[in-house]
């Protein structure tokens, strides 16, 4: 173990399309400590989602190295939990059965999996909706199911790819508060991709800024907010304003310089 949960070293990702070669990421180096909450912000198409795919081994870098929990990533990794922007639930399964898919695929003992699912259902406020089908659930509720599924096997690293991007503003705030609380309870490492600066600052300990075409790290800032963050209060903290301002300037300046 090198001591990092995620270690991305000098990584580049290039895609070959019919017309030309596209560099999605270049010279990217970032490290995430175990138990840390790191947010990655940047404009759309800057390759932030690619970073999560690299970390989980769903995508191999063109050059450079990626390590997860000190181990070099080569191929899909089982020791992560993944949440996408779309809930990606199986329509023919109830909420609980969708959560338990994780256990079935992994061959977890049924009893243990069931207990863990109940625990997560309660933690995410899904109680009473366990037997509902995805189409009977609101977008926020569907995303809670996806989160439970991602946490079922107690993954050391949780990867979230714009998980609240499709939700309305109010639901999104509510989900932010709950995610922060769940992170504190589970103590798992979280790598969250978002295009909302406010979401990144409220949730994360550190924010990595990525600029587009090609995606490069424009800077990293520490968020010096207390561990327990009341949403309304945090929004009015000078530190919150300072951090969001800093990120906005940074990403904006990079866009202008281009």
């Amino acid at each position, binding site marked *: 173990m090198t001591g990092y949960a995620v270690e991305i070293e000098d990584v580049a990702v290039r895609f070959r399309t019919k017309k030309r070669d596209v560099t999605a990421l270049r010279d990217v180096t970032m490290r995430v400590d175990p138990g840390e909450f790191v947010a990655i912000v940047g404009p759309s198409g800057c390759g932030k989602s690619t970073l999560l*795919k690299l970390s*989980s081994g*769903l995508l191999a870098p063109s050059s450079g190295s990626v390590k997860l929990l000190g181990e070099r990533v080569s191929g*899909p*990794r*089982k020791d*992560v*939990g*993944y949440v*996408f922007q*779309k*809930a*990606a*639930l*199986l*329509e*023919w399964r109830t909420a609980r059965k969708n959560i338990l*898919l*994780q256990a*079935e*695929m*992994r061959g977890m003992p049924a009893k243990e999996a069931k207990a863990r699912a109940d625990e997560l259902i309660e933690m995410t406020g899904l109680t*009473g*909706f366990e037997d*509902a*089908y*995805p*189409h*009977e*659930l*609101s*977008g*926020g*509720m*569907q995303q809670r199911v996806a989160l439970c599924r991602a946490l079922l096997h107690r993954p050391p690293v949780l990867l979230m790819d714009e998980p609240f991007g*499709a*939700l*309305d*503003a*109010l*639901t999104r705030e*509510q989900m932010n508060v709950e995610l922060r609380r769940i992170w504190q309870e589970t103590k798992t490492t979280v790598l969250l991709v978002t295009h909302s600066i406010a979401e990144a600052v409220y949730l994360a300990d550190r924010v990595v800024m990525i600029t587009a075409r090609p995606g490069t790290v424009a800077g990293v800032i520490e968020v010096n907010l207390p561990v327990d963050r009341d949403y309304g209060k945090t929004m009015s903290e000078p530190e919150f304003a300072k951090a969001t301002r800093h990120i906005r300037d940074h990403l904006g300046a990079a866009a202008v310089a281009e």
Partner: protein
Amino acid sequence: MVTHSQSARTEPAGPPGPTSSAGVSERARPGIAQRILGFTERGWRPIALLVVLFFAWWAVTAAELIEPYLVPSPGDTFDAIASRPDYFWEHTWATTYETLLGFVIAAAVGVFAAVVMVQSATVEKTLYPLLLFAQVIPKIAIAPLFVVWLGFGIGPKIVVAVLMAFFPVVISMVTGLKSVDPEMLQLSATMGAKPGQTFWKIRFPASLPHLFSGLKVAATMAVTGAVVGEFVGADAGLGFVILQANGNLDTPVLFAGLLIMSLLGVLLFVLVEWLEHLVLPWHASRRTEGVTTTL
């Protein structure tokens, strides 16, 4: 192609709908009485149309606008059936048997071919032209060949029924197996799922709505296939009845044969639809009224 599920899942960033943040929408599962009531509410229009058409048929023949030997009256048509119930029963059963057997074989072959084809792009590219060839070749033109090969028995009828019915099954099943959300497959990879698990737990169930649309088309094609098979050489079946009646200019029997044949196709279609309801209670098209559903 945008599936129902995708459009249902992505929510606009606007204000939440009445059920959006509250969670489960109020949608009680209807009881049997309500379902029958619901069916009559939805189903009266097509039934009314049938009644009107039937009445028009009766009116045209009653007023003798057309010579009776060209278009027989509904009464004559039903009399034709009623006077020889055993005859019609025997030949209807023959066609039903060929149709059902052809349909089941087509479904099995179609699903199998689709599953094999999605395994690799090479296999798909190799098999596709062959499938297409089997589809575009006019069945009525090759049916006599099957009679030469297989004789006058049930064989050629089933082969033609299978040939006509299996193409929609393959196409819809291939589409279905490919329609799986790529993110769902990526998730499956991070769960360490084996290929078999991914297939049975994700790909296969996800393809079923597509498969059923193919099966519905196949059901109607199977009837046509069986009758085409009977046309080229048979001593039983509704195709045989129609050919004989045609030769004798016995239009009431001809119309009776056509009527029963159509009814057979509709019944098989409804049967597949009923199966679909049974197997896929979760499917999105069940939740919105669509033109492709009669139930």
